[in-house]
């Protein structure tokens, strides 16, 4: 198990380095535009050249990338080209917002999906129809529309919850919870729609397997068959969906943050990209890639823990 964990961590790090390099390489095609953005369109060729030299843009791509990577490894993410604010500070200030929404939504979606999916598969009847109905309706509308409808209904008309703004958890947990309730709900609706259907389908397949019948003939109680045996075996395919769902939620969060005027990654990334603030863009990339790698690692480890066959790979 230890070597399995080490291998997964190593793979994750390699992937993270590659992803940041590819992003860096793609962005390098727009470096000239960045210089113009910083200096303004009227800058003299000499000033442009000086700026290029200062930013190190005249050196080979690899050298530039590894210099940046070396800085990151030392904890130095550079400073914003426009505000001179350290990237690490700027990014982590916004990260908390997006992370609050996405992680809370992810955990809630998993809990609700597993409960709904398992109940649907093992109880059939009305619960099953409910689960299928939820799965279908949750998929019908884009996040964006659900977000706007909820904000209009609950925050603006009913004034039950704050329509906009964010309170950090450290300041006031209750107001933090209130500020993320609607955004989280939006993500959960979509997440549950996707995952509950998956859990239901896999559980139905699992409950038809031979070992379930054999467990019944041993006098093993139904709850143990469903929640201990079948659910554990149904976990692997559900976890695959979970890692795809996480990416979808991260993307969804960026867009709906805007509806609630939450100061998260979405608007921050958007503004930095419009300006072409390369150090900030790379900082955002690194943080989000580490987030993806971290969540995928966690999912892999859970899979290895649940599924003895997965550990040997």
């Amino acid at each position: 198990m230890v070597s399995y964990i080490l291998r997964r961590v190593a793979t994750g790090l390699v992937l993270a380095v590659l992803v940041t390099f590819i992003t860096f390489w793609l962005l390098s095609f727009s470096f000239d535009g960045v210089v113009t953005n910083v200096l303004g369109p009227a800058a003299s060729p000499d000033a442009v050249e000086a700026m290029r030299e200062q930013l190190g843009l005249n050196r080979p791509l690899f050298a530039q990338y590894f210099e940046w990577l070396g800085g990151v490894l030392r904890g130095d993410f550079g400073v914003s080209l426009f505000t001179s604010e350290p990237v690490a500070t700027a990014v982590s200030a916004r990260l908390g917002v997006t992370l609050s929404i996405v992680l809370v939504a992810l955990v809630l979606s998993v809990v609700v999906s597993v409960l709904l999916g398992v109940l649907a598969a093992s109880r059939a009847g009305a619960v099953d129809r409910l689960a299928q109905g939820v799965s279908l309706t949750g998929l019908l509308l884009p996040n964006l529309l659900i977000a706007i409808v909820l904000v209009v209904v609950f925050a603006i008309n009913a004034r039950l919850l704050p329509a906009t703004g964010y309170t950090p958890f450290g300041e006031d947990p209750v107001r933090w919870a209130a500020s993320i309730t609607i955004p989280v709900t939006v993500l959960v609706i979509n997440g549950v729609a996707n995952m509950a259907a998956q859990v239901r389908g896999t559980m139905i397949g699992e409950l038809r397997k031979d070992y379930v019948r054999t467990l019944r003939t041993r006098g093993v109680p139904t709850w143990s068959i469903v929640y201990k045996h079948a659910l554990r075996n149904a976990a692997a395919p559900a976890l695959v969906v979970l890692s795809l769902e996480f990416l979808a939620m991260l993307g969804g969060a960026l867009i709906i943050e805007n509806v609630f005027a939450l100061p998260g990654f979405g608007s921050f990334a958007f503004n930095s990209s419009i300006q072409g603030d390369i150090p900030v863009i790379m900082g955002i990339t690194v943080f989000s890639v580490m987030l993806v790698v971290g969540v995928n690692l966690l999912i892999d480890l859970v899979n290895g823990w649940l599924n003895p066959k997965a550990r040997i790979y």
Partner: protein
Amino acid sequence: MAEPLLQVEKLRVQFPGRGFRAKPHEVLHGVSLAIGQGEVLGLVGESGSGKTTIGRAVLGLVKPSGGAIRFDGEDITHAGARRRRELARHIQVVFQDPYSSLNPALTVGDILSEPLIVQGASPRDARARVRGLLEQVELPKDTADRLPREFSGGQRQRVAIARALAPRPKLIVCDEPVSALDLSTQALVLKLLIDIQQETGVAFLFISHDLAVVRHISHRVSVIYTGNIVETGPAAAVTSDPRHPYSKRLLVAAPLADPVEQRRRREERKRLAGQDLPETRGTQAPSR
């Protein structure tokens, strides 16, 4: 003695180990066998013995890691994709599972004409040949327009046999062709295979775990145990009075459908069970 039709010499096959940097796992440790024209060689062994792997190596479905396979005098051990496609004319197969071996989406006619059209037959010739084939395996004429799911296991296996016969091959690898069938069907399909073999002179590499089946159809029999052939000889001798301890054990393990005889055989088995099997590597029983 003339060149045998198929000659397998010191064949080795390895499968990559499952898992991270796992060692490859050798399933055949240098097996040799030969099949003459028009001959049926029975290959008996238990699961994991490597009997199916020999058949798949001959068919080019697995790559040998050592040794040689010669067909009609030609070394085909490492035949390329193009040569393999040409060999399809001469070497064919009937698999164990008649459910998975026929594409459920194609009609029987399409299934049977596929190998013919690949070999360059015109659709018209192929249709005529399909009619002949169906007759040969004793299926009704309208079979060609129907889908595999409309047939029973025995009927499907007849279709699979017809497909193998389609290009008029010299050798058919029969991999447990009757094991998945019901008792009464099994006897009929076995009889069909013997009739066809006698009529057409096609040679069989007949793979099975069942001594009784092998005894019925084979001229000669090889016994395979954990990747080694431990005994080869005429069918009657090997299946009734085997020399190698493993072959003996195999013989007495199969229960007889006779309560009185079976009681006797059980005693015989218990007596043999007391003896340890020798290491198999290189302990081939003296050939006959």
